[in-house]
C-alpha cells in the first residue's frame, strides 16, 4: 500500500464503509476551512471547535486543512443548527458572507448521498491545492502602521463603483412582492478591488471598524455623486453613531429631507455599547429630520442575550439562519412583536425559500437577501419582454448605482421604477403606489 492510500482520504472511505454496515443514520460534514481567509484558518476558534466536535464523532483533517466530520444518529434539524453555529463564528469572512451556506460547510446524508460523498473524497486524494477566496493570501494585514495610509487612500478614492444596493421587500401571502426601500452599502471585496487593494481588511476587527468611520462618509459621497436617475423614497445606510454627528452627514441629511427621501441609519449593537449616551442623541437628531434608526445584525445569539426592544429602534434586522427555528427564538420574536415590534422586523440574509417560509409563518413582513434578489429580478424579467438577459445579469444590474455600471442594463427604467410597485413602510402610510 502506498502512502496515498493510507492518507486521511482513504481512512475516511474505509470508516464510512464500516459504519454503513450498522443500521444507524450517518451524516458526513465537510468543513471547507481552506475557503476561509488565511487569518481565520489559523484562528484558535478552529482548534477549539475541532476539539469539541472530535469528542463524540469521527473527525478527519484533509491535507488542505478542510475537516471531515462523521456524525452518527443526528436529526437533520439539529445538524443544521450545529452547522449554523459554526458558520456564525466567522460572520465577517467572505466564505460565509458572500456565498450560500454550503460553500463553507456541506453535509451529506450517507444513506442517500454516499456516492456523491465518496466521489468528493476521491477527488481530494492526492490533491494538495487549497482553494482560496478573494486572493487574500498575499495581502498584508491591516495594522496600526499602515492604517493611516490606507485611510488616506480610501479618502481619495471614488467609491461610486463600489457601492451596491439591495432591496428590502414585503411579500404577501400570495407571494406578491413590493419593494419598500434599498439598503446602500459597500463590501470588503469591492473595497479591495476598487480602493484598498493591498491589505486584508478583515485581519483586525477594531482597525477595520475605525476605517468604517471614513467609509461611511465615502458611501454618502458616492450616493451624492451617483446621479441615480431614480432616488428611492427611502434608503438605508450602515453608519457609525459618530458619523451622525459629522457636518457632512448633516448636509446629506438635510439634502435628502428636502428631496423627500427618508434615511434609515443602520446601527450595530456593539456601536451602541461603545457609547450609549451618544446613541440616544443620534436617534433624536435623526428623528428631528424625519429619519429613522434601524438596529442591525440581530442574530440567533443576539436574541439569546438581548432585549431588542429596549433599544427602542424604528426597525430591526434579524439575520436568518436555521438556528432561528429553535422554539426559544420563535418565542422571542413573538415577544418583540407584542412589545410594539410587529411592523419593525426585517428578516435579512434570506438565502433560500426556507427563510421566507419561516418569516411568513412567524408573521415577519419584510425580507432581504439573495433569494429575494432572485425573486425581484425574476419578476422584472417576466415583465421586461424585449430583452432576454440571463437572470444572473439582471440580478447584478439591479445591484449597482453608478452610471458607468448601470449602462449594462438595456432597460434601466424597469430596475429603478419597478412596475410591481413600491410600498410605504411606515404603518400610518400604508397606501400602495
Amino acid at each position, binding site marked *: 500500500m502506498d502512502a496515498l492510500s493510507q492518507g486521511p482520504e482513504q481512512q475516511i472511505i474505509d470508516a464510512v464503509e464500516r459504519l454503513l454496515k450498522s443500521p444507524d443514520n450517518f451524516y458526513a460534514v465537510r468543513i471547507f476551512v481552506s475557503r476561509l481567509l488565511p487569518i481565520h484558518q489559523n484562528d*484558535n*476558534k478552529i482548534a*477549539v471547535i475541532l476539539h469539541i466536535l472530535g469528542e463524540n464523532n469521527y473527525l478527519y483533517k484533509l491535507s488542505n486543512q478542510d475537516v471531515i466530520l462523521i456524525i452518527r444518529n443526528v436529526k437533520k434539524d439539529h445538524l443544521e443548527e450545529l452547522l449554523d*453555529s459554526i458558520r*456564525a*463564528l466567522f*460572520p465577517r469572512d467572505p466564505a460565509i458572507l458572500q456565498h450560500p451556506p454550503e460553500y463553507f460547510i456541506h453535509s451529506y446524508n450517507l444513506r442517500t448521498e454516499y456516492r456523491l460523498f465518496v466521489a468528493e473524497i476521491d477527488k481530494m486524494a492526492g490533491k494538495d491545492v487549497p482553494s482560496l477566496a478573494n486572493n487574500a493570501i498575499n495581502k498584508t494585514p491591516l*495594522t*496600526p*502602521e499602515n*492604517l*493611516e495610509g490606507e*485611510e488616506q487612500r480610501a479618502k481619495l478614492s471614488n467609491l461610486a463603483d463600489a457601492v451596491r444596493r439591495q432591496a428590502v421587500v414585503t411579500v404577501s401571502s400570495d407571494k406578491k412582492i413590493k419593494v419598500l426601500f434599498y439598503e446602500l452599502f459597500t463590501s470588503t471585496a469591492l473595497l479591495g478591488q476598487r480602493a484598498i487593494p493591498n491589505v486584508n481588511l478583515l485581519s*483586525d*476587527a*477594531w*482597525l477595520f*471598524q*475605525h476605517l468604517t*468611520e471614513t467609509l461611511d462618509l465615502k458611501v454618502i459621497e458616492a450616493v451624492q455623486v451617483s446621479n441615480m436617475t431614480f432616488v428611492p423614497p427611502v434608503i438605508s445606510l450602515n453608519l457609525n453613531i*459618530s458619523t451622525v454627528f459629522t457636518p457632512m452627514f448633516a448636509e446629506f441629511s438635510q439634502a435628502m429631507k428636502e428631496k423627500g427621501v427618508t434615511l434609515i441609519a443602520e446601527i450595530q*449593537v*456593539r456601536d*451602541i*455599547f*461603545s*457609547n*450609549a*449616551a451618544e446613541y*440616544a442623541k443620534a436617534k433624536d437628531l435623526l428623528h428631528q429630520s424625519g429619519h429613522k434608526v434601524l438596529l442591525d445584525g440581530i*442574530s440567533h*445569539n*443576539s436574541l*439569546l*442575550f*438581548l*432585549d431588542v426592544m*429596549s*433599544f427602542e429602534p424604528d426597525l430591526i434586522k434579524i439575520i436568518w439562519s436555521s438556528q432561528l427555528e429553535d422554539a426559544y427564538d420563535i418565542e422571542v420574536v413573538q415577544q418583540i412583536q407584542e412589545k410594539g415590534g410587529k411592523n419593525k422586523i426585517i428578516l435579512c440574509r434570506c438565502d433560500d425559500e426556507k427563510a421566507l417560509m419561516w418569516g411568513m409563518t412567524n408573521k415577519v413582513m419584510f425580507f432581504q437577501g439573495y433569494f429575494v434578489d432572485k425573486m425581484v429580478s425574476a419578476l422584472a424579467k417576466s415583465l421586461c419582454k424585449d430583452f432576454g438577459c440571463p437572470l444572473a445579469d439582471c440580478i447584478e444590474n439591479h445591484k449597482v448605482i453608478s452610471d458607468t455600471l448601470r449602462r449594462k442594463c438595456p432597460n434601466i427604467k424597469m430596475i429603478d421604477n419597478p412596475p410591481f410597485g413600491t410600498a410605504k413602510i411606515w404603518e400610518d402610510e400604508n397606501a400602495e403606489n
Partner: protein
Amino acid sequence: MLKTDLTRQESQLVLSLKKFEANLNRIPYDALYLQTSVLPESEKSNFLSAVNDMLQPMILLHKWQKFFLGNDDIVLLFSPEQKDELEAIIFKIKFFVPEESSEDLTKIYTLKKQFKEFMALVNSQVGKKKETNNTDEKAAPAKAVAAGAAKEKDKPEEKIKKQPLTPKMLSTVENSLKGTDFANMIRRQSVCAVVGSSHPQSMFDEVFVSVADLRDTMLPNVDFSLTPWLFQHLTETLDKRVLSHINRHDEGSFKSHFSVNLNVSTILSPDFVSFDKEIPSTFKNTIFLELQPVDIFSDLASYIMAKNFAKERGYKICVDGISHTSLRYIDRERLGADLIKMFWSQDILRRLEENDETLQEDVKRNGPSRMVLARVDDAKAIDVGHTLGINIFQGRYVQKMLSSAPGKRRVTSFYIGK
C-alpha cells in the same frame, strides 16, 4: 519686590529664591510645585496630611525644604539626585486624588534652566491667602499655571486642546509597550464589600494597567473617546501584556482572588492556556475575567465559546465598563455573567433624585448583589450604591477607606450566593 501681605513661609521662600538667583549655576535644588488649590475643598485636608506624611522622612533625611503657601499650594525644594524617589512619592500622591485633578497637581522645575518661570510662578501665587477673593487680579486657571513653564503664549482662559489617538500614535505606543517592563505600570485596585458603615472587606484585586498613567507618560492630552475603535485596539494589546506579565510572575501574588481584563479573543488564545496552567484549580473560582460589552457584542458566537471555555475551567465572568445608560440593555443572567461592573457618575444621583424608576428596575433585573459600583471617588457614591442595593465597590475612595482601615481583612473563602 516683596509683597507686604505674604505669610512667613512665603517670605522665606521668596528670600531663598532671591539668594539662588545670584548664582544660578550653583543652585543645589530643583523645585516641585504642588498645586493643592486644584483639588475640591473636601479633598484638601486629607491630601495635605497625606503629603506631609510622605514627604517628612525625605525632608529630614535629605534636607529638602518645604514651604506652605497661603493658598494651600506647596513648594518643595529637593536635591536633583533624589528625583526618582520624589517621582515615586508623586505617583503615590496622585493615586489618591480624583483623576481630573491629578493632571495639574504637580510640576517639577529644573531650576538651573527654568528658574525665571518658577520665580514668576511663585510670585504670582504668593500673597493669596485662601480666605480672600482677589477680584482685582485674575486668578490664573489651573491649566495656565501648569503651562506656565512652557514658552507658549497661551491666554490663561484657553484649555489645552485634546487630540485624538491617531493610528501613528497607536503604533508608537504599542511598539514601545513591547519592550517595556510592565511591572511599573501594573496597578491593583481592590474590589470590596462595604455593608452599611462597615470597613471595606477586600474580596479580590483587579490587576490592570492604568490607562491614565499610560496617557500621562506616552500620550499627553489625548482624548481616547475621539477614536474609540483605536482605543479598543490599544486595550486589547494592553490586556495581552498584562496576561503575559502575570504568566511570568512567580511570587504567588497572582494565584487567587484577582481579576484581569481580557478580550474574548485572548481567552481563546494560547496565552490564556499558559495562564490557565499556572493557576491551581482550587483557586480558579476566585478569579474573574473582565470583559467589555463592546467586545462581547462584537462577536457573540465567540463570546459564547470563550465564556463556556472559561467557566468550564472554573473562572468567573465579569462584564465591565457598563454606564448607567447602557445598563438598560444588559441582562447579567442571560449573558451568563457572574458579576457586572457599573461605573459611578453624578448622573446616577441625579436620576435617583428625579425619581427615575428605570434605573432601579435595571439594577433589580441584573441583581444588585452581583453588581459592583466602580470608579467610586467619594462617600456619596457609596451611599447611592447602598440605596440601590449594591454592596460591592471599587475606586479611589474605596482605596482610601481600605488604607485607613484598622488592618486590612480579606474574605478568604469566596462564594457568591445565587
